[in-house]
């Protein structure tokens, strides 16, 4: 879902965006992954060679894909779902920036819906990385979620964005 919104936002923003996803049995039990590439030029590489931004929302996904983070890439994770233990950390890259946010908890407590954790993460990421503009993301969210939940989701996005802005300094 987050991947779709991100890609869609990229498309809306006039960029080229491409999303791939792991399917089937793999996506049921273990680690599920969605890759998004956003670029100003024609996208010819189908699978990103490294992850510039890795949004981790489950432990198996984190464990599996952490090694793929690019040099200087960022790891953004839901600290309610994922534990960064030292060994996993080691597997990451020295130059990886890591940002944890208690998204599920915020979703639960502030919004009463665990599912918006996704959107909180997106907002958080948007603030921290600026990959796609918050405007495009907000539009993509509006068009992607059920009409009745648009407001809720946008609020959650903004909340995440706010939290991100607070930590933005660390990146630069």
């Amino acid at each position, binding site marked *: 879902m987050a991947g*779709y919104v991100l*890609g*869609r936002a*990229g*498309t*809306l923003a006039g960029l*080229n*965006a*491409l*999303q*791939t*996803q*792991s*399917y*089937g*049995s*793999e996506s049921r039990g273990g680690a599920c992954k969605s890759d998004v590439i956003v670029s100003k030029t024609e*996208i*010819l*590489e*189908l*699978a990103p*060679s490294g992850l510039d931004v890795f949004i981790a929302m489950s432990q198996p996904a984190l464990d599996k894909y952490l090694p793929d983070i690019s040099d200087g890439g960022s790891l953004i994770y839901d600290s309610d779902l994922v534990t960064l233990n030292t060994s996993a950390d080691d597997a990451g890259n020295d130059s990886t920036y890591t940002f944890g946010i208690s998204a599920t908890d915020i979703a639960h407590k502030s919004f009463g819906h665990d599912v918006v954790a996704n959107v909180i993460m997106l907002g958080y990421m948007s603030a921290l990385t600026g990959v796609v503009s918050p405007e495009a993301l907000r539009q*993509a969210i509006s068009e992607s979620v059920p009409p009745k939940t648009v407001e809720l989701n946008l609020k959650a996005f903004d909340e995440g964005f706010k939290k991100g802005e607070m930590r933005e300094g660390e990146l630069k």
Partner: protein
Amino acid sequence: MQTDRATGYLSTLAGKVQFALGDEAIAYGALFAGCTFFGGYPITPASEVAETMARELPNVDGYYVQFEDEIGSIAAVIGASRAGAKSMTATSGPGFSLMQENIGYAIMTETPCVVVDVQRSGPSTGQATKPAQADVLQARWGTHGDHEMIAFAPNSVQECLDVMIECFNLSERYRHPVVLLADGEIGHLREKLVFPDPADLDLFPRGGFDAADEAGLVEPMRAYGEGNAVHITGSTHKENGMRDVVSQDVHERLITRCCAKIDKNRDNIIRVEERFMDDAETVVVSFGADSRPALGAVVRARNEGVKVGYFRPISIWPFCGERLTQIGKRVRKILVPEMNLGQLAREIERFVSVPVVRVSKIGGVAHSVEEVYQAIIENSRS
């Protein structure tokens, strides 16, 4: 063939920008092409074509029916076509194998229909959720007996839609089944998709035919339900449709014509994309999703001064052999990155005398730009 309601609905979509799956784009291509019947059976990675059709067909006064298997699906698709609907199915390797007998029936009865094969990694169940491009030769030779085939392979989500419209048009024009040879990679990735304006589309009408174009090889099609007492059979038949299963000449005439109508109209069907070909010494020939990293690699090598060209068959069958023969005379080597063990490369070998280098990759992963680039460098030095 499209109702006003259908055209009206499609007009509301015109120009809209989507972030869509290749599978979805295929479905929309069908809708814009005038398809009003989908008969299918779920299979990864083609199910999203069915799901999109199930959702959208009612909007164009069309019908989605899921069958008990792939054999029933293709049978119903042919039946629906005979009854007057532009019709299609979508499947992947295992289901495509099961459809082969009736694809032969569609050829023999000259019934238009479109079969989408979103290729996954086989043989057999293989890596069911992983993409491949290894049904290139099944698409051509999966059914028994002598026959030709039309098949196209798109390499972007937008092209999925565009080429699908072309598939329907060619299917109607030549009264032949047409295969959209998509791969799981393109079927399951999302990118930008812009819907066309139905007013801009040139749709080939059911039963219409273009005399100038056809060299007299295709007769207009007579549909059922219009009081003509039309007889259709997959057995050998005379020009009037009546069975004659013993005369050598009747069979020869029928089959020769059915092959010739594709072969002689080759130039009207074949579509290729060529880039950097003028001074190329090496050519990369690639199709479908895998042609994207291939192009990426060619661009990169060109930037470094390597004289490498890029050639992409968009139509896979009939094959663009003559063009490759010409190219083969000017270049030293042909490199073929594909997500199989050299199925396109084999066909190219029939037409050129220069070495055809297989740059195969299997196991459910497309080439990276780097991999193709390395192959170019290795093969350009020598």
